[in-house]
């Protein structure tokens, strides 16, 4: 059984107990424990069930690579599934539950799957769920949803109570990994005077070296670590950050760091996670290495653990996995575990070394301590169910015939180490297969490159394939100096402190144990613990023709779980290579993608939640609209009043009331959101003639003209009224959504195509509030305020004038989008509310009321005015809308002219704009299609038109609509059918799109 040792544990504070619970059971650990070490200290060997076969699973590692120890952490609003016990620091009150079992961890129904495993082979999903087709939706998918998944999703009503944020910094050298290599690299770059940031994902500096032993500069590794931290802390140009993982490396030296600010102290105020967005000249990846499991039968039984992890738990946390630990290895490093255990007074019944020739100096040391060492041996199978009870030993060279059984409670396995090359690979760094060490390591000649074609990531220490301590220190100093020079320092020194060198016997690649293991053993030899992929599955995939490692991965799901195959990938592709009969480098690796380990959704969202989830644009009168109880609709990022419902009114009733008020007396619209672009310069007229389909250069100063803007492909993209301000200045109104887009469109043409034209454009949309005063009494309202002549003679339709209204400087445009007498008044935004208030007061005697966007839409539709986005959808040209009158025939060119001459654009069969009136006066469904006789090649009804705008018109007390109809304008009076989605067929008559005041008498008074 696993337990806390009487002493030891460099990271725990035995003076402070910490209470926590697991599956409702109250347990205690020490400050400094991880959840994994605390569970193990309480003999909680089994922490979950596997994904597919629901096999009992225990902690197998001690760090970020852990595949099994995933729990539901917290409750309610705090619940998070799939939290890794090895990287979760223990805190008072921590509460967690195990995953993927029912009804309980100890007794689980799904475990029956393990007996069905021969019916659940690789690619089972693909084979099983393809047929019959209809089963997918009603049988298979619900079944998979029920049985799949590890953790429990939070309840739908749960809301994360924590806050999150970003932090942007720039650095010369970013060092990721706070082991001795990272510390040395940071020292080297820091001493050169550069801006250095050092990130370490755990809560402690020093990494493996302090566990593995050895001396640096004649002193224990811990002394070096302490001295390095103290020196780095003294450098103002160096910043150190614990609990901050290098999550991803991206182009241009952009790196994401994931800081878990208070996961270890959830009651502490402040953000929970902080996402660091780093721009750095150079990245040093000192991310260490991950130990590989060995593939033998029963290697997933709780109590089988990586040898390095067994050592970590003893040295760092004072926790032993068992009293009797069998070590099984193909390399010398695992002997360190045996030695550490023995020195702690624990029993090591045997070291099973798969190498016939055995180990080197460390093996001699182990023997000297009295440990039995068996060379050329292997584990045939692990005995036990929910925990290890013993191992059966066989010859590595054979097929698994058992030579003897050894009783034990734990197995420490080591298949060698793989450098953590993830950060190197994220942005394209290439790998090379190092055959003697049986590992992929970074290829220094093919680093990820920046904009200058030079590498910007350097690996240091174990991440670079250097495992010997002396080599690690030399490599790290070199990496630090190389990065410093690349970042512009001239004085970087390669000097590295001397360190111990231990001569180790070479590792022997062992991908399967024993090498001739029969199918029964292979079906119990796990590669991917989290996704339940075994040696036999990968071999089956190879037999079924999956040659690409990427395909085999997806077919078998190897490496596709939340741990992304940190333990399984190399072993899996070695098995695949063997099955395909090709060398490992030819098979290659799957793609390493960020983030290194999963990061929280909260960190990705940062501060953007609740009221600042997205920017909301507010006009100067927004608060007034809110106070009136306006019902808002989003228009781009603006919120515009849709209508202003009064008490007891439906939105429809409010809209009708607002329309009647405008038609009969006077209403007010907040038109501030409309785009306003000032275009000025000697070439401005010529430029606008290119931008608009009609002439703008000949517009007289003081006048306004409606204009259409097309893309170079001829499609209508925006419209609005243009005013000539002076000899070389025009003001172009755009649609609300078009302001920024049309500004960018103009700048694009000015900067990229007509860079020699003298034109400046400024977007003054937000400088001005714009208020439309609309209706037969509009003039009277303005006259009441006084200050300027707004008579028909002084300010006729389609003209503008500067002046003052009751002391406020304004520019008034006589333009109308409603067909009524209408003044659009532009005023400095800071005085928008003041003018609005004055107009409200002045209009009171006429019952003035604000109207919203829906009334605006209906008013324009009654007049047959088009709306960009309703009558247009990016495929409509002005000719479709019968706007030929707004397309200049005199101009030699404008954007879209040539495109509109193409055969398809000039096709008389293009659908064209008409008005539509239902025979019974009802409102046509929006977007409905008009059907024609016959069927098309797909068996669908032929179409002859569609509705683009449809409303109830309170003015006419009937439904009105506009639509695009085949040969529409030639078919006036014809009745066509619009089947609705409600099963009804709406019959509508084709009519003129101008439903109201066809002669325009009302606006021109």
């Amino acid at each position, binding site marked *: 059984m696993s337990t806390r040792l009487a002493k030891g544990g460099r990271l725990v504070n035995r003076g402070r107990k910490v209470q926590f619970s697991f599956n409702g059971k109250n347990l205690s650990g020490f400050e400094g424990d991880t959840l994994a070490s605390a569970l193990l200290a309480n003999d909680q060997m089994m922490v979950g069930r596997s994904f597919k076969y629901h096999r009992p699973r225990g902690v197998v590692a001690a760090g970020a690579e852990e595949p099994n120890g995933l729990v539901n952490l917290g409750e309610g609003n705090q619940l998070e599934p799939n939290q890794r016990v090895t990287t979760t620091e223990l805190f008072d009150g921590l509460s967690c539950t195990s995953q993927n079992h029912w009804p309980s961890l100890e007794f689980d129904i799904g475990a029956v799957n393990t007996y069905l495993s021969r019916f659940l082979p690789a690619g089972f999903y693909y084979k099983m769920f393809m047929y019959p087709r209809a089963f997918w939706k009603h049988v298979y998918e619900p079944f998979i949803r029920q049985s799949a998944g590890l953790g429990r999703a939070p309840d739908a009503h749960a809301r994360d109570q924590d806050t999150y944020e970003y932090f942007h*910094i720039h650095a010369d050298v970013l060092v990721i990994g706070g082991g001795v290599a990272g510390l040395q690299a940071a020292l080297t770059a820091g001493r050169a005077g550069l801006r250095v940031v050092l990130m370490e994902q755990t809560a402690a500096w020093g990494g493996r070296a302090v566990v593995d032993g050895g001396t640096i500069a004649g002193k224990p590794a811990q002394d070096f670590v302490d001295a390095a931290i103290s020196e780095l802390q003294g450098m103002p140009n160096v910043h150190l950050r614990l609990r901050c993982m290098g999550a991803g490396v991206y182009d241009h030296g952009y790196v994401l760091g994931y800081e878990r600010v208070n996961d270890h102290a959830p009651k502490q105020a402040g953000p929970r996670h902080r996402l660091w967005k780093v*721009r750095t000249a150079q990245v040093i990846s000192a991310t260490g290495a991950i130990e590989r499991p060995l593939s033998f039968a029963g290697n997933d039984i709780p109590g089988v653990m990586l040898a390095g992890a067994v050592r970590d738990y003893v040295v760092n946390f004072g926790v032993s996995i068992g009293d009797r630990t069998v070590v099984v290895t193909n390399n010398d490093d695992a002997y360190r575990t045996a030695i550490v255990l023995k020195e702690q007074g624990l029993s090591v019944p045997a070291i099973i070394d798969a190498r016939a020739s055995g180990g080197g100096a460390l093996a001699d040391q182990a023997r000297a301590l009295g440990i039995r060492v068996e060379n050329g041996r292997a584990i045939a199978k692990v005995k036990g169910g929910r925990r290890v009870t013993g191992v059966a030993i066989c010859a590595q060279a054979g097929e698994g015939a058992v030579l003897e059984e050894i009783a034990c409670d734990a197995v420490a396995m080591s298949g060698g180490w793989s450098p953590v090359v993830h950060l190197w690979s994220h942005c394209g760094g290439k790998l090379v297969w190092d055959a003697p060490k049986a590992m992929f390591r970074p290829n220094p000649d093919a680093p990820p490159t920046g904009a200058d074609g030079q590498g910007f990531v350097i690996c240091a220490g174990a991440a670079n394939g250097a495992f010997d301590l002396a080599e690690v220190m030399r490599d790290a100093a070199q990496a630090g100096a190389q990065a410093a020079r690349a970042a512009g320092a001239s004085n970087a020194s390669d000097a590295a402190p001397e360190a111990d060198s231990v001569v180790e016997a070479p590792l022997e690649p062992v991908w399967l144990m024993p090498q001739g293991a029969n199918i029964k053993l292979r079906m119990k030899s796990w590669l991917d613990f989290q996704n339940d992929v075994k040696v036999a599955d990968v071999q089956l995939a190879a037999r079924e023709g999956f040659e690409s490692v990427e395909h085999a991965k997806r077919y078998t799901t190897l490496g596709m779980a939340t741990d992304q195959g940190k333990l399984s990938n190399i072993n899996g592709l070695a098995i695949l290579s063997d099955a395909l009969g090709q060398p490992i480098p030819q098979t290659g690796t799957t793609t390493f993608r960020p983030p290194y380990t999963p990061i929280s959704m909260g960190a990705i969202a940062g501060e*953007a939640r609740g*009221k600042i989830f997205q920017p909301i*644009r507010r006009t*100067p009168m927004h608060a007034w609209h809110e106070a009136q109880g306006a019902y808002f609709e989003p228009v781009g990022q603006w919120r515009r009043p849709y209508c202003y419902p009064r008490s007891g009114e439906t939105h429809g009733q409010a809209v009708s009331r607002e329309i009647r008020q405008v038609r009969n007396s006077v209403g007010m619209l907040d038109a501030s959101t409309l785009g306003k672009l*000032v275009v000025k310069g000697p070439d401005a007229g010529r430029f606008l003639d290119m931008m608009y389909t009609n002439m703008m250069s000949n517009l007289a100063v003081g006048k306004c003209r409606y204009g259409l803007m097309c893309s170079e492909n001829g499609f209508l993209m925006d419209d609005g009224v243009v005013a000539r301000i002076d000899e070389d200045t025009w003001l172009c109104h755009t649609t609300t959504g078009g302001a920024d887009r049309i500004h960018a469109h103009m700048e694009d043409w000015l900067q990229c195509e007509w860079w020699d034209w003298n034109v400046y454009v400024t977007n*003054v949309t937000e*400088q001005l509030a714009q208020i439309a005063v609309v209706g037969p009494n509009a003039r009277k309202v303005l006259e009441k305020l006084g200050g300027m002549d707004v008579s028909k003679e002084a300010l006729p339709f389609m003209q503008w004038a500067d002046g003052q209204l009751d002391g406020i400087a304004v520019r008034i445009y006589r333009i109308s989008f409603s067909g009524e007498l209408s003044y659009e008044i532009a005023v400095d*935004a800071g005085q928008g509310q003041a003018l609005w208030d004055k107009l409200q007061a002045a209009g009171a005697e006429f019952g003035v009321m604000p109207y919203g966007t829906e009334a605006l839409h209906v008013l324009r539709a009654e007049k047959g005015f088009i709306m960009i986005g309703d009558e247009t959808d990016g495929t409509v040209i002005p000719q479709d809308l019968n706007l030929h009158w707004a397309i200049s025939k005199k101009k030699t060119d404008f954007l879209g002219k040539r495109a509109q001459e193409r055969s398809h654009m000039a096709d008389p069969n293009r659908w064209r704009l008409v008005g539509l009136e239902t025979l019974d006066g009802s409102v046509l469904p929006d977007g409905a299609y008009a059907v024609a006789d016959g069927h098309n090649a797909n068996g669908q009804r032929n179409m002859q038109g569609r509705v683009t705008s449809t409303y109830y018109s309170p003015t006419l007390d009937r439904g009105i609509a506009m639509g695009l109809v085949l040969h529409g304008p030639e078919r006036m009076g014809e009745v066509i059918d619009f089947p609705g989605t409600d099963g009804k067929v709406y019959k509508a008559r084709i009519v003129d799109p101008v439903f109201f005041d066809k002669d325009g008498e009302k606006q021109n008074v």
Partner: protein
Amino acid sequence: MSNALSALQGAKFDGLVKVADAGLQGMITLRGDFADAKLQAAVKEATGHDLPQQRAMALQGDTGVAWMSPDELLLLVPYAEAHACVAGLRAALAGTHHMVENVSDARAFIALSGADGLVREVLAKVVPVDMDPQHMPEGQMRRTKLAQVAAAIWMQAPGEARVVCFRSVGTYAYDVLCTVAAPNSGVGFYAS
């Protein structure tokens, strides 16, 4: 002019640093040829400053000039004088290709104040700008992105920063800054 309202109408917040409406500030967009002596003289006349170098600004009280692009400047003048200043500049630049527009009301103007390191940290949470004092000293302005909107920022004095953004998103920018200036959210990156 007495009834002119600033976008944030005096809002203020006290957290890690103080976030507050910086009130009405005259702002003028000037576009033209920087090499033109007439333009240089007009800027000097209007603000008392020479043309700034790339990314730089010169500021004295509420009067100054900031570099926006190779052909655009932002002139800062007292709010009440903005319209008159626009007229003066237009007259001075008559006959040359130029553009002068009053944009005082198009903007929200926000002040951050507190310990210098914390002011820099609060900004660094929402702008991808190098806020290191050596790289972002006084006398520099950055046009950048603040959370999800366009903004310009500068250090006015040690522990005093200014943020300019469009008026319509003033409330958003203010809310964002208050959120990331929550008490106990210091990063400990910049010395205070």
